[in-house]
């Protein structure tokens, strides 16, 4: 669950920053992310396009090319700081303890290799299984993610699968080495709604079975409600609000989170003429405003400091581990 009393977090991220050198100056894409991921927990990172959520997790695995990128801060996993780990060390962790699934299942499988070959690759690499052992396990994995006739499908090519099936295969590849953490970078975005629900359910089931932690990145608050224990809302590379999932939906305290939730259509109510939108655009990461990054779009601006000072992430009044980055709180 969200805040287990015992043990250490699997993943401890402290003040993670990612900067990219561009012609127009440094783009500050991720600015001081800090969070813990506990065993068995599902942590969702929500934000709109360009909020830094994908880069934030790619940097965990050392997958942000440096240069032009520059990653600073600390990422503690298994007693090691991954930010300072060597490429060889990271390679041993990738796909083994830390697996990742990607957004678009149509392009994330190699078109010229059979599904079986791609499934067994990681097992041969990390678990040292022989080809035949790896194939046995691959059949098992395909069945587990709900692929019919897994033995026959092992020798099929990606183009012979539908989008949802391919995402299932990707999940099977991600699970191949029993990862402790599964990082899902918008795995349902490219799928239709029915398939989305199936994939969300599948990851939930597998998570219960395997006791792994899931870091789920999405821009879809509807998906989050179905799967997450805890939610972090990102804006302009910062966490602006962090809370347990029910708390966040029931009582959002940050004006941005409120704006996001208000922009969702609600089933069973009278349909409004127009959905509420947050006016404006996210700030350019090369020219972040000096104050709160949301200030230019904020409908409230209740504090004078908003324009000049960047509000730090702090616990809300009265709520234990509900945190926001704002000088004031909007009430439910």
């Amino acid at each position, binding site marked *: 669950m969200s805040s287990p009393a015992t043990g250490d977090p699997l993943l401890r991220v402290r003040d993670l920053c990612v900067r990219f050198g561009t012609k127009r100056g440094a783009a500050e894409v991720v600015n001081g992310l800090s969070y813990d991921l506990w065993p068995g927990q599902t942590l969702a990172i929500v934000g709109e396009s360009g909020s830094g959520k994908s880069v934030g997790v790619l940097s965990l695995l050392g997958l942000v090319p440096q240069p032009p990128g520059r990653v600073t801060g600390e990422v503690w996993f298994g007693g090691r700081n991954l930010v300072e780990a060597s490429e060889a060390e990271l390679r*041993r962790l990738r*796909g083994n303890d830390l697996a990742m699934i*990607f957004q678009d299942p149509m*392009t994330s499988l190699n078109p*010229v290799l059979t599904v079986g070959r791609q499934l067994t690759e990681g097992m041969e690499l990390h678990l040292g299984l022989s080809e035949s052992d790896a194939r046995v396990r691959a059949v098992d994995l395909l069945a587990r993610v709900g692929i019919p*006739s897994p033995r026959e499908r092992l020798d099929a090519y990606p183009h*012979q699968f539908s989008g949802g*099936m391919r995402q299932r295969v990707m999940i099977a590849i991600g699970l191949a080495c029993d990862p402790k953490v599964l990082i899902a970078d918008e795995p349902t975005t490219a799928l239709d709604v029915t398939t989305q629900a199936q994939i969300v359910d599948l990851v939930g089931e597998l998570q219960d079975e395997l006791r792994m932690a899931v870091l789920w990145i999405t821009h879809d608050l509807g998906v989050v409600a179905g799967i997450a224990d805890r939610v972090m809302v990102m804006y302009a590379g910062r966490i602006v609000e962090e809370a347990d999932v029910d708390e966040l939906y029931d009582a959002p305290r940050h004006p941005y989170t409120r704006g996001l939730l208000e922009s969702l259509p609600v089933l069973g109510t009278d349909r409004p003429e127009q959905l509420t939108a947050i006016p404006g655009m996210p700030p350019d990461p090369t020219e972040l405003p000096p104050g709160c990054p949301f200030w230019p779009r904020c409908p409230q601006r209740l504090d004078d400091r908003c324009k000049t000072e960047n509000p730090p992430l702090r616990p809300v009044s009265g709520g234990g581990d509900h945190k926001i980055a704002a000088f004031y709180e909007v009430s439910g």
Partner: protein
Amino acid sequence: MAADQEQPERAGAGAAAQVDDRPALPASRSRAAEVWSAVLANRLAVAGLVILVAIALAALLGERIAPYGPTEIDFQARLEGPSARHPFGTDQLGRDILSRVMLGSRISLQVGFISVGIALVGGVVLGLIAGFYGGKRDDVIMRVMDILFAFPAILLAIAVLAILGPGIGNAMIAIGIVYVPIFARVTRASVLSVREEVYVRAARSLGASDVRLLRLHVLPNVLAPIIVQTSISLAFAILSEAALSFLGLGAPRPTPAWGLMLAEGRGFIQQAWWMAFFPGMAILLTVLAFNVLGDALRDALDPRQKSAIESRGVTA
């Protein structure tokens, strides 16, 4: 998406245990088989294949099926025109042109395959490194390739032969070096787009090393243009060898080589047209066959055409 694909998927979500007894989808045909059948559907390509097989047979069987020895001199039958005894006529020393053309294919094919092999290995390795890593390595490799490219092919080959000395083995090396830049460029261009593909990133995120990424994920996906370039380069390499032999820098006399025969025939073109005509035709047909096959391969490997075939297959 087709209904027959969606159906088992939905069932699979809830009942993963019992889905195994569902009928499997039609057995998957391998990609190579698909490409092969697409090539066979192209009539010109089949004609090219037939010509190449005939030439390959002539090269393999050589003396066993040739009516005369390639260097067998018969002064009684000098400069005879095509006849039943000598279908392609004879040259100034009375040697049978047909036999010489048949055995000449050996040198041409040998030069073609070996020199293109040299160019292929060198160019693909350099192109993979340049395209995948970019930066300084890319700059250095591609500028050297540009320098090689700046010379006319035959001039560069002559320059290399001037260093190595004439002879058929050195001619192969020289031609190989001449064609390295083309392969490097073709490979690099495809690698530039493939390295950005999600599946390459995904493989990296699963812990694959650079060598593994290049071998398993990048190389197989850039193969299509390389295969096409290979078949076209085979044609050019054969032409280059003919040109070098023509200039006296390739095979030494009296080796039966098409270029050399062409050069000798040139002097007799007024009296004995067949001396230049038949080796010339052999060169032309071989080059044409490789080109036609290369075109067909390009079409067969074109992903847009492939996807058209697939979508037809899925909706059917």
